[in-house]
C-alpha cells in the first residue's frame, strides 16, 4: 500500500477494504505476482493506493479483463475490485459467466447499496425504502424492482468455489472480513477456483448519515436483507 492520502469520504469503507487487501497480499507474500483490476466507481483510482501492478477496466468488465490476464498468466494472482453498480448492474453478464467458467480469480465486491461516484443514485443492491437521488421517496419494488442478491445467485453456479458476505462496520467484522479476503486469495493460490467476498460497506455521504449512524444502519437495516456469513464453500 502506498503512503498517500486517500480521496474517500470520512466513514467510507473503501479505505478499510483497500488496506485489508494489501495486508493479506503482504502476508501471503504475493505482492510481486499480483495484478489488480480496478473498477469504474469510487475505487476507480485504486491504482493510486495499491503498490502492485494494476489496471482499470471499463465499467463492469473487470471479470472479463481478469479472465484475459489470468488465462495468459496462470501463475500470477489476479483479482477484481468492484462496487455494486459495477458488478451487479452493468457487469452482471461478466461476473456470472466468469464465475460460471470457474475462472481461478478472486473478486472483492464492495456493496454500499448506492452509486457513490456519480452522486448517490439507486444501485441494484439499494434496499427497499432506501432513499437515493433516483428514488427520492424510497425504493419501491413494483417500480424499481427488488434488491439483487448477487452473491446468493452466484453461489448456485457449479463453477463457484467460495462466496462469503461480510461487513466492515465494526472492528470485529473488519477482522472477519480480513479472514474472508485471505481465504479468497489462498483459494486462488491453491488453484481452487472462483472466490468472491461481498463486503457491506458504509457510504455515509449518500446515505445522508454520520459515519457512526452509517455503521449502525448496516447492522439494523442492511444485514436484515443481506445476511452475513459463508454462502458457499466447496
Amino acid at each position, binding site marked *: 500500500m502506498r503512503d498517500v492520502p486517500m480521496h474517500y469520504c470520512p466513514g467510507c469503507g473503501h479505505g478499510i477494504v483497500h488496506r485489508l487487501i494489501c495486508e493479506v497480499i503482504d502476508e501471503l507474500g504475493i505482492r*510481486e505476482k499480483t495484478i489488480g483490476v480496478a473498477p469504474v466507481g469510487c475505487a476507480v483510482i485504486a491504482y493510486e493506493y495499491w503498490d*502492485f501492478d494494476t*489496471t482499470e477496466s471499463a465499467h463492469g468488465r473487470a471479470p*472479463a*479483463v481478469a479472465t484475459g490476464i489470468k488465462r495468459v498468466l496462470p501463475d500470477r494472482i489476479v483479482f477484481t475490485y468492484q462496487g455494486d453498480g459495477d458488478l451487479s448492474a452493468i457487469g452482471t453478464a*461478466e461476473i456470472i459467466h466468469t464465475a460460471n467458467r470457474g475462472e481461478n480469480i478472486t473478486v472483492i465486491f464492495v456493496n454500499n447499496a448506492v452509486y457513490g461516484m456519480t452522486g448517490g443514485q439507486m444501485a441494484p443492491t439499494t434496499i427497499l425504502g432506501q432513499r437515493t437521488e433516483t428514488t427520492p421517496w424510497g425504493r419501491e419494488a413494483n417500480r424499481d424492482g427488488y434488491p439483487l442478491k448477487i452473491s446468493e445467485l452466484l453461489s448456485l453456479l457449479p463453477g463457484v468455489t467460495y462466496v462469503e458476505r461480510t461487513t466492515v462496520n465494526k472492528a470485529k467484522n473488519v477482522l472477519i472480513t480480513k479472514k474472508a479476503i485471505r481465504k479468497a486469495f489462498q483459494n486462488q493460490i491453491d488453484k481452487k477456483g472462483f472466490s468472491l467476498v461481498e463486503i457491506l460497506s458504509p457510504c455515509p455521504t449518500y446515505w445522508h448519515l454520520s459515519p457512526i449512524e452509517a455503521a449502525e444502519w448496516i447492522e439494523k437495516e442492511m444485514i436484515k436483507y443481506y445476511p452475513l456469513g459463508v454462502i458457499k464453500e466447496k
Partner: protein
Amino acid sequence: MCGNEAIGEGAIQADCQFYAGYPITPQNELTAYMAKRMYEEKRIFIQSESELSAINMVFGASLAGARAMTSSSSPGISLKQEGISYLVGCELPAVIVNIMRGGPGLGNIAPSQADYFQATKGGGHGDYHTIVLAPSSVEEAFNLTMLAFDLADLYRNPVIVLGDGMLGQMMEPVNIEMATYKNKKINTDKDWALTGCRGRKPHVIRSLFLEEGVLEEHNKKLQKKFQEIKEKEVRFEGLCLEDAEFVLIAYGTVSRICKAVMNDLREKGKKIGLIRPITLWPFPERIIKGVAQRVKGILVVEMSAGQMLEDVRLAVEGACPVDFYGRMGGGVPTEEEISKKLSGFKAV
C-alpha cells in the same frame, strides 16, 4: 480455405496467443477455426458470453503481454467499440476482425462495406484512429492478418482487419509457406505489460487521467503516434495509372469487380486505371491527390451509400470530377453496372 479460415491461420502464424469470440454470421468459420487451431497449438481460446466480454478479455490478455485477437461482424463490432476505445486509451495492441454484413440494425448476413466510417474514423468515443487493413483476396487476408499483429505491437494500438461477408466465405488457395508477408514478431518483448512487479516498480495501465492537463498531453501523444502512422503505413495497389484517363477507386472484394471492369474496358481501348486502398486508415490520399491532377474523372465504387467516397473527395479537393456507384444492404455491384456508371463520364 475460406477467407475466415485464412485470417485464423494468419493469426496462428503470427503467434496469436489468445483469442476470444462470440458467434455471428458471416464470420463463424473464423471462431470455429480458432477453436480447433488454438487447442492444437496449446494456446488460449475462449467462447465469450458477449462481444463486450470478448473485447475485454482481449484487453486483459493484451495488457498481460500476449498477442490477442477477437473477431465479429458488424452488429457485434458495434458492441466492441467501448473496448476498442479503451485499448487505444491504454495503448494496448490487439487485432480485431470485422467481416462486414448489411446494416443498419440487425440488417442481414450478406456482404457489405457499410462499416467504413466506424472503422476508419474511430468508432468508439474519444479522438482516435485504429489502423484498418482491407484484404481483397483470401491469400491477402492471410498476409494482412499477420501484418496486423506486427503493426499493433509496433504502435501499441488496435488494428482492424476489415473484410466483407463475401471475402469471409469465398474459397481460394493460400500458400502458407510462401507468404508474401513474413510476420516479424516485432516489439513482442513487452516491458510495459502487467506481469507482477517482481524486480521493478509496479506498472499501471489505465485510460483515466483526472489531473488537470494530463489527459490533453496523453491525447497529444496519441495524435503524434497517429501522425507517424499516417506517414509510414499507407498501403495501396495502383493499376494502369500511368496513362489512365479515368480511375476506379474501390477496396476489398469490390476492387476485384472493378479490376474485371478495367481489364474489359482496356481491351476495348479505354484508358482506365484502378486504385485499391489496402490501408483504409491511414488513407492513401497522396496517390489519389496526385492522380486527380491528371485524369478526367474518378469513380468510387463501394457496397455502401458512399463512405470512402468522402475521403476520396477530400484527397481530390475538386481537381477532377468524382462520381460514385454503390449498392447497399447486401447488394453487390456488377461489372455491367459499374461500366454503365463509368460511361456517364464524358469521353469514356
